């Protein structure tokens, strides 16, 4: 059975509608959302309403958490003072716009979703704020999947879609006790193949062009298809300006630049 995984909608209604239409055309009925329904974009209520209407199971993203609990990430989550100020501006605006009902919905979202050996998270199994980048240390990446007891880990947060296969994972341990140095025991554990699939971003692509991205996973074959969907970017850009968000957000979206660049130390997990 094929199912679709979407992430990082960021209050971009035109992009979400285009992606759902693309999924519907493929007669796929199982959709999972990895969070960040809101943040930066101009239609937070509309996007949350659509996810609720379609009954799309979602886990909670870092923006969803921050909107209901208040900003709790430290300045190190932003690459610059400018990005931080813009992030706070977007946060304040979104918090003011979002209905209490939709805030309650975001508050109800789980941190993770699981279907058999598939695990769905926003950032990583450890935190909504942790970036699993495609080039992160292979052992650390494998650890994230293995300790979560999953075969395939679906994540978002980086806004760059990728499929990473972790194979040939071997851990060799030699234990030598002082009592009997000759009896050193060596154990070797061969870890099975694990995969990390990043769904990219529907509402704030960061992969080099303006198309929304998501993934289709075929559970029978294991095949993962990264989908790029063009949408009416100008519609969202107009809405950004009309609702009073900074026009530079529209400029950045129109050119395929993220609203705020990724933090320099992407592995940093804010504990504040």
């Amino acid at each position, binding site marked *: 059975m094929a199912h679709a995984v979407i992430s990082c909608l960021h209050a971009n209604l035109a992009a979400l509608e285009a992606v759902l239409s693309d999924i519907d055309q493929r007669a796929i009925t199982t959709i999972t959302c990895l969070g960040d329904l809101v943040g930066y974009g101009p239609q937070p209520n509309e996007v949350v309403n659509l996810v609720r209407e379609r009954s799309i199971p979602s886990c909670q993203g870092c923006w969803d958490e921050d909107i209901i609990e208040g900003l709790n990430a430290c300045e190190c989550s932003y690459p610059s*003072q*400018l990005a931080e100020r813009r992030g706070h501006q977007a946060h304040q605006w979104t918090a003011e716009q979002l209905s209490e009902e939709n805030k309650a919905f975001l508050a109800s979202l789980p941190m993770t979703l699981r279907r058999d050996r598939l695990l769905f998270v926003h950032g990583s199994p450890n935190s909504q704020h942790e970036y699993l980048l495609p080039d992160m240390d292979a052992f650390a990446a494998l650890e994230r999947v293995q300790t979560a007891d999953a075969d395939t880990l679906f994540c978002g947060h980086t806004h760059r879609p990728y499929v990473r296969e972790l194979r040939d994972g071997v851990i060799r341990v030699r234990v030598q006790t002082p009592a009997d140095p000759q009896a050193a025991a060596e154990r070797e554990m061969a870890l099975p193949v694990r995969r990390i699939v990043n769904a990219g971003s529907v509402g704030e692509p960061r992969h080099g062009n303006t198309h929304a991205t998501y993934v289709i996973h075929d559970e029978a074959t294991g095949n993962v298809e990264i989908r790029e969907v063009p949408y009416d970017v100008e519609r969202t850009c107009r809405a950004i300006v009309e609702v009073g968000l900074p026009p530079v957000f529209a400029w950045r979206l129109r050119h395929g630049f993220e609203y705020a660049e990724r933090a320099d130390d992407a592995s940093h997990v804010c504990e504040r």
Partner: protein
Amino acid sequence: MSHTVLLSGPPGCGKTTWILSQIQSYRGPSGYLRVTGYPDEGLAQARDGGLDLAYLRDQCPDLLDLGDLDQALAPHPADLLALIELPQFHPPAQPGLAGVDRRVMPQLQALHLNPDRHLHFGRDPELPRQDTLDFSHLQAWSLNLNATVWDPDSLSSFWFELVNGAYGDVYRAKALMNLPDGRAFFCNWMVSQEGSQFLPLQTLAPPDGRPERLSRLVVQGRDLDPAAIEATVRDCLLSDAVLELQQAPLRQRHTPPTRSA
């Protein structure tokens, strides 16, 4: 024997860069004057505010400021090379000195400067031609940034947005910007060139509060949005508290020299 050269050309054609190369290759004393250019139909002149002079004097500390009345009216060294920069959008109607804009002459005479050569970018072959653009409409805007210090990563983002059109079509941008560690950069961008120049000033300010050197942003282009530029700049500048936080550890390592090696 002294030489006085009047150098004219449109924005971003390389006047200041060429002048710097002349000063650096000349063995004798040099002086510099930037004359305020005249607007043309639909073409506004930028308010330089001393930016080019500040950069040139940083690179060549002995450079005479010929706009300073005391220096201008004092007897000049016999071998002085006087270089006068004149922003001018269109080529002169006549070759040589006969083509000098008559409106400029009273300014020069008041400073006892009489050009013996006039070179114009895009006309005279001894000057580089590749950066000369023919403008038909140009808006100018500038911002005094004295005593401001930038968050370095924010400066990088702002400059990227500025020169790539987030605040209007920018054809020319230049600036002197202070960083918290005491360095300053001459940021230079022209639509016809690939990439920006970020040239560090030789003069370092001690990491002890806000530097006193000139700091300014000058932009020329079309459909500029000054309010949006200023709003973004405000979000990039460091407060006293953040500046102190960044400079305190630097002061412990700081030694007094005010010019880099």
